């Protein structure tokens, strides 16, 4: 019975959207005078997306900007007070430095690993390629709480003399060291947390870049081979140029995920030991400290940070349109 209800729900949900587009398009063809059709059709195509994004994201985003100029409970305008706090509070400066590190390291390494796997696996037989890619992808399928448990088994610390249940300390102690509480070490604990993010996101980069590599026409590579290019030269001069826009897209996406990352911090250190980042602080300000003004100011900051990357993307798309 339950199964039937769910099945009906799935069919209705999936069928509903197909029917919606079909009906909208038919409406343009049937109901509008011919000269209006070309003007109206793009809006049929983007209409549903625009509508839902407008209600669910754009309106909240605009509201967020408004509330960033208001007080803790969004009741009175306070001018630039929240941004003043953003610019002067020393704990905020610390999290911004951390975020900068995350931005510099995580997208680059994730893309590099994802690209390496996509390229190397491409040279294997289909069965081995699938096996290798599945294993790199595996972390993505694991829920966040599961992932935090996993890394607990890596970074865990036990007192000297006790059996170490964390892999890293077990190796370290075997080599003659004293157990180290890895996540307390402010000098490098940020990087240990970034490893978790890279571990999770490399699969994302790999899947998208692999799809792009599969689209690189075989004859362009063959042509280079006939010309005597090495595999490495082929990669850099034939493959990479053809998937450049995919690399930009994947890098940008991971960058934005990095800006929004809070769960990794929350479940591991909770932002202690100097590991806090903007998105986690946003959650704290919004739900724990109940200061909507400061929370939304942090979001506005994130939006501003992404603007340069958006400009790069737009340029990229213009170039793409020019060359196709």
């Amino acid at each position, binding site marked *: 019975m339950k199964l039937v209800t*769910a*099945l009906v729900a799935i069919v209705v*949900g999936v069928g509903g959207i197909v029917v919606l*587009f079909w009906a909208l398009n038919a409406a343009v063809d049937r109901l509008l005078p011919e000269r209006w059709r070309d003007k109206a059709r793009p809006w049929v*195509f*983007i209409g*549903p*997306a625009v509508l*839902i*994004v407008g209600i669910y994201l754009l309106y*909240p*985003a605009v*509201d*967020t900007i408004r509330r960033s100029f208001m007080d803790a409970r969004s009741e009175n305008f306070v001018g630039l007070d929240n941004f003043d706090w953003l610019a002067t509070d020393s704990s905020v400066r610390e999290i911004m430095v951390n975020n900068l590190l995350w931005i510099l390291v995580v997208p680059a390494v994730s893309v590099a690993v994802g690209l390496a*796997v996509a390229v190397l696996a491409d040279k*294997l037989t289909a069965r081995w390629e*699938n096996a*290798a890619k*599945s*294993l*790199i992808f*595996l972390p993505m*399928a*694991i*829920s966040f709480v*599961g992932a935090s*448990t*996993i890394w607990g*088994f890596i970074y865990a610390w036990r007192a000297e003399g006790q*059996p170490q*249940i964390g*892999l890293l300390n077990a190796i370290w102690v075997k080599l003659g060291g004293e157990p180290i509480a890895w996540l307390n070490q402010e000098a490098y604990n940020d990087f240990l947390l970034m490893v978790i993010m890279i571990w999770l996101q*490399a699969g994302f980069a790999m*899947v*998208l870049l692999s*799809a792009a590599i*599969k689209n690189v*026409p075989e004859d*362009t590579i063959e*042509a280079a081979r006939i*010309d*005597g*290019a*090495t595999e490495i030269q*082929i990669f850099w*001069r*034939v493959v990479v140029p053809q998937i450049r826009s*995919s690399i930009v897209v994947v890098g*940008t*996406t991971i960058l*934005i995920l990095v*800006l929004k990352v809070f769960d990794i911090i929350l479940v591991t250190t909770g932002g202690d030991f100097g590991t806090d980042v903007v*998105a986690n602080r*946003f959650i704290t300000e*919004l739900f724990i400290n109940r200061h909507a003004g400061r929370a939304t100011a942090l979001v506005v900051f*994130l939006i501003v940070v*992404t603007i340069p990357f958006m400009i790069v993307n*737009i340029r990229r798309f213009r170039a793409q349109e020019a*060359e*196709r």
Partner: protein
Amino acid sequence: MTAEALAGSKASGVTSGGVPAGGLGRWLVRGALALLVLVWTLPTIGLLVSSFRPQQAVQTSGWWTQITSPLEWTFDSYTTVLDGGMGTAFVNSLAVSIPSTVIPILAAAFAAYAFAWMEFRGREVLFVVFVGLLVVPLQVALTPILRLYSSLGITGEFLAVWLAHTAFGMPLAVYIFRNYIGSLPREVIESAKVDGAGHFQIFWRLIIPLSVPALAAYAIFQFLWVWNDLLVAIVFLGGNREVAVVTQALQNLLGSQGQAWHLLTAGAFITMVVPLIVFFSLQRFFVRGLTAGSVKG
């Protein structure tokens, strides 16, 4: 095919006398890949082994000792989790995840096609807004949406969650598809137009089949996010047990004070099964020549 020709001319510029990878090169590739895969898999193996260990053993010795000096293996964690009403939750999770994956993909593909191949006023501005919204954390959207749902009375219904996930996944989907669909060769679309096809036919008969790798890739991610989501489910489905999804069912099993965290290990693997099936079944769409073949055909 412009892209091909362009790349081909670039490729012909490569003239240094290298040789294709021989035997040694092949083994280097395999070795490097094997190392990466091992490093990537090791943490998960730890979790897998731990899920078959008694709670006491997990807390007092490293998981690798289970392999070097096997102690006791147990299915207790798995039986506890599976007994906890997971069956209904699996069905509910599918009812939430499948439409929440298909709806945004279709809507985003239509939008991406329009952004890439149709002329209309405000195209670029609109696209920038779409991509810019990627960075908006969904937490700021929860309150306004819930207010809307409360007045419509649809909290606790699947529809409420479908639409929310559709919206939250839309900017990334539009962004990725716009890149992919925009890189398709112009000749394909132009020649279809010459044959008298309208945008709607071009979209269904050409764009969708040609975009299968990108659609499949995104489908995997959207499905994963929805499947593993807890926050959106708690907020919009509430506690209606009839519609509780897998993450909620698992949550119900775990103590609030860390007593039952060993169940997490088993729970993580049980909930992982469906996303992996999705991954493997969509994997076959990442095959070389799919695009090239259909373009030429």
